[in-house]
């Protein structure tokens, strides 16, 4: 796969080289500070295998196979299995791999911070996110007000909390249900909603349609919604978190649905994650989140593309 103008060797330009160097220093400081934040909050740093036998079945995420295993698309399943083994607060910074994802905000190999904690729900997690971002800004000697992509964003809590339904009402002429029926939900999100999110403070976009939260718990009292949220800053998505589904039977049905959707689209399917499903029966209530480390580095450095905050792009290796 070639990307034309993307192949330009950055290092030829001394100005670009010195910018990249300062981004990489800042990135290292961010990673260090993330560790500090979680360790002081009694989280245990864990490492789980990157080569796995069964990634979480997702209709729109392409896992990369290596021999008879897969590179992880996220450490989610292994980390939830750890929750059942006496580790109530865990975090991990790991490399994840997703095929066919390449753009100004996407790399096929990238770094995810994931953390999981028992006996909290997605609302508690939102507060923890606010605290993390403020801590990182402080460690980087930045104020709470950031300039990112031409937008001035204040990280001071509380951030805006906007339900998916309210976002559709505010920014589009269609309803969520209509968009889902027409299969235009994603497109509407990208072109009409995302550009408005995270403009004064970061935005928590929350309560997704149940069909769009394959691993999330349904909202008690409203099973048409999943307790899932995303963080947006200046129109850019940074994280995806939720109250974790811990009903193994329900989880199997959802995985089957995702696999069926893949089969229908003619995409390769992977095996059912049986060990995860069997452990899930013992998983306590919990919430967890995946946050893109590369995009965090972009945010705190006002970088224009993800290429600028990594040591090498896939095209430069």
């Amino acid at each position: 796969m070639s990307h034309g103008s993307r192949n330009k060797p950055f290092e030829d330009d001394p100005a670009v080289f010195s910018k990249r160097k300062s981004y990489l220093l800042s990135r290292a400081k961010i990673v260090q500070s993330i560790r500090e934040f979680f360790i002081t909050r009694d989280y245990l740093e864990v490492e789980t295998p990157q080569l796995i036998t069964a990634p979480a079945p997702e209709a729109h995420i392409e896992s990369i196979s290596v021999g008879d295993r897969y590179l992880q698309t996220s450490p989610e399943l292994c980390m939830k299995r750890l929750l059942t083994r006496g580790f109530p607060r865990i975090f991990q910074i790991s490399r994840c791999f997703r095929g066919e994802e390449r753009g100004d905000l996407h790399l096929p190999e990238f770094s995810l911070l994931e953390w999981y904690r028992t006996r909290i729900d997605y609302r508690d997690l939102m507060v923890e996110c606010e605290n993390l971002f403020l801590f990182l800004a402080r460690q980087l000697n930045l104020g709470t007000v950031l300039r990112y992509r031409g937008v001035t964003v204040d990280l001071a809590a509380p951030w805006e909390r906007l339900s998916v339904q309210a976002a559709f009402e505010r920014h589009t002429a269609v309803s969520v249900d209509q968009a889902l029926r027409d299969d235009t939900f994603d497109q509407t999100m990208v072109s009409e909603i995302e550009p408005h999110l995270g403009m004064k403070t970061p935005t928590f976009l929350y309560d997704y349609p149940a069909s769009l939260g394959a691993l999330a718990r349904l909202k008690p009292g409203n099973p048409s919604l999943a307790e899932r949220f995303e963080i947006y800053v200046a129109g850019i998505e940074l994280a995806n978190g939720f109250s974790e589904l811990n009903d193994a039977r329900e989880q199997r049905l959802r995985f089957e649905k995702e696999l069926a959707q893949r089969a229908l689209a003619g995409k390769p399917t992977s095996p059912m994650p049986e060990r995860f499903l069997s452990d899930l029966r013992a998983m306590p209530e919990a919430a967890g989140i995946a946050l893109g480390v590369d995009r965090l580095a972009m945010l705190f450095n006002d970088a224009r593309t993800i290429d600028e905050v990594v040591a090498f792009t896939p095209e430069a290796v």
Partner: protein
Amino acid sequence: MYNASDLRKGLKIEIDGEPYVVTAFEFSKPGKGQSLYRCKLKNMITGVIIDPTYRSGDSFKPADLSERKMQYLYNQDDEFWFMDVENYEQYVLKEDQVGDARNYLIDNLEVDILFFGDRPIGITLPNFVDLLVTKADPWAKGDSVTGDTKPIMLETGYELRVPPFIEEGGKITVDTRTGEYVTRVKE
């Protein structure tokens, strides 16, 4: 066939029987949603720009494009005639397909003609072409009031500004990419 993930700037694909070139491209993927490839495509025949959004799973035929060496023969009304230097077959391009290239077309000039299938759709000129000056005011020595350049006309009817020492009946080299004067051709 190309897949959506092959899309990138400069890629040439066929849509509804017409060749398009990708002029802008943005990959996006909301949440755990589908991959969306937002493109701007320019029709290589009409110049019309469209901005479709593609999804993973979409596929495209590469546009069947080729270039052939041709000699410019002549023009009549809005038609410009060229001859394939290998098999002497003659082809015609319309005025709007030739565009600014007409400023440099002189008899027997060798050019590359772009084909979509069997259909000629565009022209690539040599970077430099020598052309005869057909109209120029005489060089008034010492007259610096008019600045460093003066307007002239070339044999193709093209008008441009050149240094004052260029005279009618002489030849100059023009850069076809910028349309600007390069040098005087010494006879």
